[in-house]
């Protein structure tokens, strides 16, 4: 058990193992994504109320779920870095932020595109949408704070504190926007709520959620590999790797 943690702190080992994980995970992820997309787009019946526009669910919901989970991955990695001063956790935190921001962006954008034919409006100040917008700001804040520091060790710790503060705040923000919206809710827009979903629609959705989790993991590992090399540029193993043309 402990030797695993010691290995986890060793950059060459992490670089090697992430490479071999990616070698089978990446093709599998792409396969799952394409399968899910084709299944959702071509082989499911349209929703009886929303028609074909509901097909956006197969990218909107997975992106939103994984974007939120990604924030917790980032915050936990930051906490590990703060408490145990583990360098690899810092690398993981820095790698997670841009991916999370991209997924949040996808969730917001597809939500807006879905909203137009369904509710007749691009944007609603509903609790879930507003919280996703704030999640995007939190991700971008972490990225901006990291870039602003010249000392990257301090940058990692500062971002860890910021993401932990954000973790405490996300439920508060969500609840307060929820109450605020229920006070102001205009009558014209009704949310369908958590209606039960037909299995023929559920299975491709579950596949897509899994695929997005795998996508997040792949991107995280790839970002970590690039970051590892840059941090370890002075060491022998990275120099040998560079001379070998990146293979090894």
């Amino acid at each position, binding site marked *: 058990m402990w030797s695993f943690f010691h290995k986890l702190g060793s950059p060459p080992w992490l670089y090697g193992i992430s490479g071999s994980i990616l070698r089978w995970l990446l093709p599998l992820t792409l396969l799952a994504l394409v399968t899910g997309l084709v299944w959702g787009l071509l082989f499911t019946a349209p929703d009886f109320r929303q028609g074909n526009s509901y097909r956006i669910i197969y990218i909107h919901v997975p992106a939103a779920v994984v974007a939120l989970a990604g924030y917790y991955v980032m915050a936990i990695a930051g906490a590990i870095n703060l408490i145990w001063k583990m360098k690899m956790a810092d690398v993981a935190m820095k790698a997670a932020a841009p991916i999370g921001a991209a997924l949040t962006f996808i969730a917001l954008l597809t939500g807006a595109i879905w909203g137009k034919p369904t509710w007749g409006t691009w944007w609603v100040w509903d609790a879930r949408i507003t919280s996703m917008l704030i999640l995007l700001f939190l991700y971008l804040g972490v990225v901006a704070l990291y870039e*602003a520091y010249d000392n990257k060790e*301090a940058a990692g710790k500062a971002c860890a504190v910021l993401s932990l503060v954000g973790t405490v705040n996300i439920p508060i923000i969500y609840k307060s926007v929820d109450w605020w919206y229920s006070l102001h809710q205009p009558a014209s827009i009704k949310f369908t709520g958590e209606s039960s979903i037909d299995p023929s629609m559920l299975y491709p959705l579950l596949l897509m959620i899994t695929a997005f989790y795998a996508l997040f993991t792949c991107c995280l590992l790839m970002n970590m590999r690039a970051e590892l090399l840059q941090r370890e540029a002075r060491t022998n193993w990275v120099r040998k790797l560079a001379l070998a043309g990146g293979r090894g």
Partner: protein
Amino acid sequence: MSAPGPAAFCLRLLRRQLVLAVRRPIEIGNPLLFFAMVVALFPLGLGPAPDQLAGFAPGILWIIALLSNLLTSDAVFRSDFDDGSLEQLLLSPQPLYLSVLAYIGAHWLITGLLLALVSPVFALMLNLPGEAIGSLVASLLLGTGVLSLLGCIGAALTVGLKRGGMLISLLILPLYMPVLIFGSAAVQAAVNGSPAGPYLALLGAMLSLAIALAPLAIAAGLRISVDA
């Protein structure tokens, strides 16, 4: 002279901050002046119709209070960081949690408290109904405390950076949102004649939570900034 106890040290630190602020009265005046000027901008942008202004007044007043608080929070630790006294504070045996609270207390006294006290004047300029002024002052008193605590987290994280000014707003504004919601909702409730108490209670709960947790984040942020 023996070292003062934590409480005495805290009070001394608070007094020092206040004395420093009183010696530069323009620094105290700036947020109030900012408040007054932005209040003057809104009627020019929205039109001078009194009932329309009164409808927007709770939101306007709260957003301006939030912005002027944000603009001043950047400077809370700046001068002490530059002259090295912040580093001395971190090295001293005093509990950092309480020292940080003294800084925040001073910041709140010279921005939040003053803003809350002068806000009735601006409320009348925006035609806010008289019966809502009480809850406006109360919500500002509670809410600006939370804003000061949150703003100081951003200040502590960016104090070592040369260009922290714009960054702090990106970091902190998302966290301000719940305060804005319940602050303006309290005033709005009073305007509509419904009780503002529940909203004020929620603001009080947020203030308690922020007092308990924010100094920890601020202390960690200050250590990171000084070490960098």
